[in-house]
C-alpha cells in the first residue's frame, strides 16, 4: 500500500513540476481578480472576450519559444529578428496594395520566407556562442531593431498609407491596418456565446500553428532536435548533428516569430515599427515561463496556459487597478511580472546543478 501512495505522490509532484508553482500562484491570482472584477461591476463578457483576443494574437509568438528551448538554445531573446521579418513582410503587403485576406496571407507567406533565411543565419551565429545565447540573442535583437529604425527611415517605400505625410520619406511609427488586413481573422466567422465575442478566425489560425508545432516535434527531424537539446553528448553519440538541430530550431522559431507578429498586428489593427518590438521577446519568454516551462524545457501546453494567464492578467488588472488605484499600473505590473518571472527562471536551482 505504501508503494502505491509513494507512486501517487511522485506523480503529483511530476505534474506540479510540469506546471510549476508560479503558474499556480498566478492562476489563483487571476481567478481572484476575475471575481473581484465581477464584484466591482465590471463587464465580464467584455473582459473575457478581450482575453480570448489577446490569447489568440500573442499565442504564435509564444509558441516560437518552444523550438528554441527544446533545441537547447534556451528562450529566444532574439525573437526580434523574426518580428522584424514579419514587419517587413507586412509593409510589403501594404506597399503592393494587397487588401483583406489576400494581404494577410501574402504577408504570412513572405514572413515565412524571410524568417527562414534570417533564422538560418541567426542559428549559425548562436552555434558559435554556446553558453551565452541569451545575452547575445538579446543584444542581437536590440541591435537589429536599431538598425531597422534606420531602415524604416530611409527605405524607398512609396505607399501613402505608410509614409510621413509632410516629410515624404520614411515610414510612420504607427500604421493603421484598417483598410488593409486589420481584423480580418478576428472577424471571420465571429460569433457570440453568452455575450462573449469569440474571434473564431484568429483562434483557428492559432490552433493551426499549434498543430504544426505538434507535428514538427513528432517528425524525424523534430525528434532529433529534441534529443540534441536534451543531451548534446547523447545526440552526438547517436549520430545526430547538434549544430544542425540548433539551426533548424532557430529557423522554426524565427518563422513563428515572423508569422506571429503579422497575426498580432492584424488583431491589434496597427503596425508598430521602430522601437515598439524592443521588449516583445521578453513578454513571450515570460508567458511560456508562467505556463510552467523552464530554460531547458517547454511544451505546447505550457505555451497555451502561460499565454492565457499572462494576457488574462493584463486584461483584467487594468480596469481593476483603475478602480482601486490610478492608471498606469498596468504597464508597471507588466514589467514586474514579465521580468520577475524571467528572473525566477534564471535563478532556480536545477536538480544537481550548482
Amino acid at each position, binding site marked *: 500500500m505504501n508503494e502505491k501512495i509513494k*507512486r501517487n505522490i*511522485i506523480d503529483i509532484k511530476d505534474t506540479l513540476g510540469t506546471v510549476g508553482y508560479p503558474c499556480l500562484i498566478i492562476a489563483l491570482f487571476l481567478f481572484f481578480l476575475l471575481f473581484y472584477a465581477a464584484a466591482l461591476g465590471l463587464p465580464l463578457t467584455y473582459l473575457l472576450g478581450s482575453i480570448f483576443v489577446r490569447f489568440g494574437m500573442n499565442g504564435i509568438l509564444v509558441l516560437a519559444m518552444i523550438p528554441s528551448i527544446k533545441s537547447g538554445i534556451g528562450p529566444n531573446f532574439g525573437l526580434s529578428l523574426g518580428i522584424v521579418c514579419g514587419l517587413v513582410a507586412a509593409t510589403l503587403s501594404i506597399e503592393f496594395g494587397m487588401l483583406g485576406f489576400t494581404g494577410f496571407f501574402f504577408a504570412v507567406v513572405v514572413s515565412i520566407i524571410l524568417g527562414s533565411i534570417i533564422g538560418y543565419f541567426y542559428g549559425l551565429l548562436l552555434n558559435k556562442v554556446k553558453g551565452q545565447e541569451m545575452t547575445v540573442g538579446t543584444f542581437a535583437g536590440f541591435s537589429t531593431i536599431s538598425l531597422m529604425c534606420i531602415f524604416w527611415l530611409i527605405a524607398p517605400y512609396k505607399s501613402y498609407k505608410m509614409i510621413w505625410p509632410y516629410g515624404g520619406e520614411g515610414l510612420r511609427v504607427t500604421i493603421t491596418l484598417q483598410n488593409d488586413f486589420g481584423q480580418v481573422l478576428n472577424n471571420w466567422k465571429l460569433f457570440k456565446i453568452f455575450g462573449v465575442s469569440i474571434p473564431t478566425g484568429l483562434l483557428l489560425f492559432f490552433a493551426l500553428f499549434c498543430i504544426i508545432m505538434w*507535428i514538427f516535434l*513528432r*517528425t*524525424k527531424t523534430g*525528434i*532529433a532536435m*529534441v*534529443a540534441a537539446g*536534451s*543531451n548534446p*553528448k*547523447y545526440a*552526438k*553519440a*547517436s*549520430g*545526430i548533428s547538434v549544430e544542425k538541430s540548433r539551426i533548424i530550431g532557430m529557423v522554426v522559431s524565427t518563422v513563428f516569430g515572423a508569422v506571429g507578429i503579422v497575426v498580432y498586428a492584424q488583431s491589434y489593427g496597427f503596425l508598430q515599427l521602430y522601437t515598439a518590438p524592443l521588449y516583445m521577446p521578453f513578454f513571450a519568454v515570460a508567458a511560456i515561463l508562467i505556463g510552467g516551462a523552464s530554460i531547458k*524545457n517547454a511544451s505546447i501546453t505550457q505555451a497555451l496556459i502561460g499565454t492565457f494567464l499572462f494576457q488574462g492578467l493584463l486584461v483584467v488588472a487594468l480596469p481593476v487597478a483603475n478602480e482601486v488605484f490610478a492608471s498606469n499600473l498596468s504597464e508597471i505590473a507588466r514589467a514586474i511580472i514579465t521580468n520577475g518571472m524571467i528572473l525566477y527562471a534564471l535563478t532556480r536551482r536545477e536538480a544537481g546543478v550548482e
Partner: protein
Amino acid sequence: MSKRCLLEMKNINKEYFGSKVLKNINITVNEGEIRSLVGENGAGKSTLMNILFGMPLIHNTGGFKGKIFFNGEKVDIKSPWSAMDLGIGMVHQEFMLLPGFSITENIKLNREQTKHNLLSKLFGPKLKSLDFVSMRKDSRFVLDALDLSIDEMLPVAGLPVGYMQFIEIARELDKKYTKLIVFDEPTAVLTEIEAETLIKTMKILAEKGISILFITHRLGEVLKVSDNITVLRDGEVVADLKTKDATVEKLAELMIGKKLGKFSVNHTAQSPFNEDFNKTTLKIEDLKVFMPSEEVKGISLEIKKGEIFGIGGLAGQGKIGIANGVMGIYSSEGRVLKEGKEIKLNDTTSAFNNRLAFVSEDRREVGLLLDHSVELNIVIKAIQHQNKFLRKIGGLRLIDRKNITQYSLKMIKELDIRCRGPKQIVRRLSGGNQQKVCIANAITLEPEILFVSEPTRGIDVGAKKIVLDHLKKLNQELGMTIIMTSSELIELRSICSRIAIIYKGKVAGILSPDASEVEFGLLMAGEKSYQKEIS
C-alpha cells in the same frame, strides 16, 4: 628506528547509495615516511583521499564511519581548509593553480602576507596591503629548497606542465606547518625525466621530516621511492608491506587478486558451429584517439567474427578511448576496416551504417536521455539511422507511437527492465535498469558488431550477471561480435575469448582468459612492456 605515528585512519567505512566502497580500511603513516597506496581504479583510493581531505562530496553522501587520528589526537576534518589547517597538503592530478597569477601569488594563495594601512585600520583587515617583498622572499626560499631556479614572479600560465607540480609542492612546503603531503597520481602527466626529478624531490621532503602518501599505479616508482606499501582492492586493504619485501610481480598479483569463485571461466563464448569462426570482421590499424585522459596512441587489433573480445587495463591508459574513437565520439586517426571495407572515422553515422553500435561507459551523460521515456530512449537511434518506427503521412515522416510502444514492451520483457512501463521517465530507473535500456538502445539497431564499455559499472551483483548473460546470449544466438571494454578483469575473464590489455595508449599484450593474475597485473601496470624496452 621508531618513528612517531603521524596519521592513523582507523576502521574507515564508506557507502555510496547502498554499495560499500570502503570496508574497514586501516592505514598509518609515520613521520618522515613515504608510503605508497596502490590499487586498481575503483579500489577506493580516491574515496579514501576525499575523506582525508574533508571533501564536500563525502559529507553530502552520508559521511563516513571510522576515526582519523593526526599527531595522536582524534580529528574531525570537515572541509579541505581544515585539512590544510592541520598540516595535510595535497598535490593534485588536476593542478590547483591560477594561471593568471605569478608563481609567488600561487604559492601564497589565501595566505598572503599583509601590512596595515590607513584604510584597513578603519574598514577592516581585508583592506590590508599585500606585502610582496616578504611574499617573494618566502617563495624564493622554498623554490630554492626544491632546487628550482625559476623566476618566482613569472605567471603560471605559460609554464610547462612539469613545473606546475613543483609549484604545488612549493606551496605545501611554504606552509611551515605542513606535516603530510598526499601525491595523487603525480607522475601521470610527467615525462620520464620529470618523474625522476619528482621522486628525488619526494625523498628530499621525507628527509626534512615531511610524511608522504604516494598514490600511484606505477609499480616501478613505488619500489624506487617508498618505505612501505599499502595495497587496496575492492575497497579493502589486502596488504601492508615493507618495500624491501615487495616485488613488482607480487604487487601486481595483490592488485588483481585471485577471486575466481564467482564467475566461471567460460570458453563457449565462441560458437564452434559458426562457419566464419576465424574470419576477421574488424581490423583496427594504428588507431589514435584524442580522448582527454584516455588517449589512444596507436593501437592495432584484429577482431574475429563471432567472438567476444575483451579490452582491459587501468584507468586513464586508453582502453575506453578505443570504442569511442571507432564510433566517432572523439576525434581519431588511423584506419578501421570492417570485413575489408574501410569505415570513415570521426563519423558516428558511418559507423552505424556499417552495422556497428555501442553502449557508452558514461551511462548517464552519453548513453541516455534521462528526462525522456524508456521507449524513446530505446528506439531513437534506429529512428535516426534506419528510418524505423516511422510512418509516412503526406510526405512527412512521423514517429509511429504504437509501433514504438509495442517494440519497447518486447525489449522490456527480454531484458527484464524493471520499470512501470515504456512511458516511464528513465531518470527514475535504477542504475542496472538504466544500463539495460542502453543495451536495448544499441540492440535495436541490429548491429553486427557491438562495442560495450563498462557494461556492469555501478550495478549490483545480481543485475551484473543478467547483463553479462544477455551479452552472451546475443553472441551465441545472433552471432553478434562483441567487443567489451571493462575495468573489471573478472567479468572480462568470464565471457571473453581473448583479452587485450592497454597501457599508455598502446596494446601491452593480448592474453587468454586463463592467463595468470600476475601476467595480467604486469601488463596492466606496464611492467612487462617496461622490461621489454630495457631488453
